[in-house]
């Protein structure tokens, strides 16, 4: 008994001397990432963790409005597009300053965009269609494209789109690598926060930019902790050591949140799809139709996502194109069973992505169970995304179906077709090629009128589904869990897992 008392007293004394856990100030927002931030260079990495930080350190010309995929000005006060669709003219705000105090000019924007276009930078491809850029005066920046691209503004507003870096980096610290090294650990943006502490692998602190040109944000500091385990993040949130969890809170636990926690549920651009390998067992269209009958998401969706997903309406997420009706899956299970029974015994391999692996595995297990009901045995295997990219090299060794939730670059449907469905799309995992579909995509990519554009893209979706090359399954909703009292989280569908630190506040 005595030793227990002594132990507790010792620990209490230690805690007192060490300051124990700090009592966080009202105006510090504490968040956590499961993975470390790779770099603060907005042009040289494709991160999922850190987009929210980059979004308040740097700013681009245009951005998406909160809760929508509508575009609005950011550093650009307004813009115009020439009639031929080739020239974009941006008028910049006139009171913007970089974090080092220098005023933003169109020349700075030009210098930055020239850097972004350097082919040795990872994200230069966002400006692939740019022919020429100029800054005719201090407030005007002009971009000329090689061909009309109605998706161009969306590419600029993308989570990974260009965000202007100032001369404090590109001139003063350019070094021999155009500031690549310097920008790993520093920044010179125009946003409402600046980096004030980098402790790799553990913690990053963003502090309010008191000279910010826009509305003053509420929080003095944003404290980002690197906490790899979701279980620990959940305990920290319950205990009050975190203010919110932006993604990854297990769906199955969302219905029983501890008191004091709140949910914000919103649609993003992640669409759950099954990619079909039509070169192996599923080369027979009749068998593919039987498989479609079994995969009908109406039968398993709630079990997989606990009510946080809805049946897909097309091969585009609802936040991108709002098709009226869910995809029409065949529903005659008896007919499907008869098809399978008439064929030689079928065993399929279902591969699934390793991002949000637990969710994907659960969905794959439910699909396997659904296939079992029509007499098809299925085996399961997880494939990291970069392994899935090699499927097309040897289709006979690839799985028969690949289940994944992937994100396009932006909210324009051209970024969905360009990434997943065209013959040259990088995430066209099984190398589906259809010249007719490519022609339809090329034609749709040139249409500016939104209604007509969406109509054309939906025709493409229907044809791809009819070919059973890609199966749209579900729009999985994103969930932010936060402590009661926060408001103004303002997520945007096109920015995965991003809470807007500029607008968030305590009630």
């Amino acid at each position, binding site marked *: 008994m005595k030793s227990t008392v002594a132990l507790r007293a010792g620990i209490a004394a230690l805690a007192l001397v060490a300051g124990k856990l700090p009592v966080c100030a009202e105006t510090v927002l504490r968040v956590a990432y499961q993975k470390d931030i790779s770099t603060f260079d907005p042009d040289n990495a494709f991160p999922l963790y850190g987009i929210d930080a980059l979004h308040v350190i740097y700013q681009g010309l245009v951005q998406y409005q909160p809760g929508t995929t509508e575009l609005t000005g950011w550093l650009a006060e307004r813009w115009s597009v020439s009639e031929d669709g080739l020239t974009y003219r941006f008028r910049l705000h006139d009171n913007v300053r970089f974090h080092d105090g220098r005023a933003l000019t169109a020349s700075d924007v030009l210098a930055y965009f020239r850097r972004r276009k350097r082919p040795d930078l990872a994200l*230069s491809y966002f400006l692939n269609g740019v022919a020429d850029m100029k800054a005719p005066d201090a407030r005007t920046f002009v971009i000329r494209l090689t061909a009309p691209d109605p998706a161009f503004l969306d590419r600029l507003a993308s989570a990974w789109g260009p965000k202007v870096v100032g001369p404090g980096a590109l001139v003063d610290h350019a070094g021999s690598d155009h500031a690549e090294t310097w920008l790993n650990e520093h920044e010179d943006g125009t946003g409402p926060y600046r980096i004030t502490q980098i402790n790799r692998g553990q*913690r990053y602190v963003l502090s309010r930019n008191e000279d910010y040109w826009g509305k003053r944000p509420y929080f003095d500091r944003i404290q980002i902790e690197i906490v790899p385990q979701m279980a620990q993040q959940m305990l920290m949130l319950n205990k009050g050591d975190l203010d919110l969890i932006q993604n990854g809170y297990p769906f199955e636990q969302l219905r029983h949140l501890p008191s004091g926690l709140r949910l914000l549920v919103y649609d993003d651009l992640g669409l759950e799809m099954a990619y079909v390998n039509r070169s192996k067992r599923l080369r027979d269209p009749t068998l593919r139709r039987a498989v479609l009958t079994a995969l009908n998401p109406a039968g398993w969706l709630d079990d997989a996502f606990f009510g946080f997903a809805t049946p897909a309406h097309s091969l585009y997420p609802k936040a991108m194109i709002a098709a009226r009706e869910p995809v029409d899956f065949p529903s005659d299970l008896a007919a499907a069973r008869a098809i399978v029974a008439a064929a030689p015994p079928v065993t399929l391999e279902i591969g699934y992505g390793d991002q949000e692996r637990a969710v994907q595995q659960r969905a794959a297990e439910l699909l396997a169970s659904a296939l079992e009901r029509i007499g098809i045995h299925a085996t399961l295997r997880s494939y990291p995304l970069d392994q899935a990219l090699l499927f097309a090299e040897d289709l006979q060794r690839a799985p028969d179906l690949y289940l994944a939730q992937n994100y*396009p670059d932006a909210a324009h449907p051209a970024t969905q077709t360009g990434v997943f469905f065209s013959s040259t799309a990088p995430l066209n995992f099984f190398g589906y090629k259809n010249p007719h579909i490519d022609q339809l995509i090329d034609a749709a990519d040139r249409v500016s009128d939104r209604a007509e554009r969406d109509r054309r893209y939906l025709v493409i979706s229907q044809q791809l589904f009819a070919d059973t090359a890609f199966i749209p399954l579900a729009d999985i909703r994103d969930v932010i869990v936060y402590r009661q009292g926060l408001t103004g989280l303002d997520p945007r569908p096109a920015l995965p897992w991003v809470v807007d630190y500029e607008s968030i506040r305590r009630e």
Partner: protein
Amino acid sequence: MFIAKRLISLVGILIAMTFIVFSLQQIIPADPVRAIVGMNAPRATAEARRKELGLDQPLPQRYGRYLSRLAVGDLGVSTRTHRPVAVDLAHFLPASAELMLAAFAVGITLALAAALPNAAGHGGNAVATGIIAASSAPIFLVAQVFALILWYWLGWFPGGGRLGPDTPPPDGPTGLFVLDGLLNGHPSTSIEALYHLAIPALTLALPVAAALGRALTSSMTGVLRQTYVRTARAKGLSEFAVVRRHVLRNAAPVPVAMVGLQFQQMFMNILIVEGLFAWPGVGSYLVQAFAASDLPAILGVSIAFGGCYLVLAALIDVLQALLDPRIEAR
């Protein structure tokens, strides 16, 4: 001569290890280029980057280039953090080193506490029973139970990280926060660092304590039966003096040899424990490097830990030779 031989074999083993890791990366179907340019980048962009990094060249050529750079201490640049791997290691290794040192210190203390009463014939004790029980469970489970009880419920210790958010990391020179706090005149930083070390170090220490405790108990039991121990007692030495002067020294070679094995085991365990306690060490770094197919980082960590292990193994050989001159003679 003995040490020189060990050093030469150490270099050979390290080179062989780089070859194995390099070849494994070639076999594993993962694409580091996609980790850099993103999955959505056009194929042409990815291929251009692959060429720029020299990843389109044959394996022997790439390996040769890697070795030539390694010879001058260049471990390459991490494709994930965009920093030289050597810089990353200098940042992350001290955190792991501090955690492992603390774990070894706790583990050895617990092992002694468990072994001494047992060997002295006082039978089993609560410490030994507790250690064996706790180390029988998987380490991730032990870690979570400790975190749940000592951090979440009781609030006695922090649940993760090396320092609290309001304490700036000390400015070197070692990267071991407990030591650096003292060297920089900030004892409160050292205490806070110790406070953060408590749960992860205890978790890592249990398997060490169990293994060393058993080895020491068994070894001491044998030594205690030796005639020179009986002679020492007959001379009138106190039991403490007998154990300290005659028993521990002669019983030490077996547990000392086991320290090398425990280091290897502990390296595997920190991959789990660092993640569970948000400890910014080389284990967490390696796990993220694997997820991003970051070959330079994986190789760098392998070389660093392989080197540490081999140096430790050599030190243990030397220590054993000092403890028992017959080993060197052999």
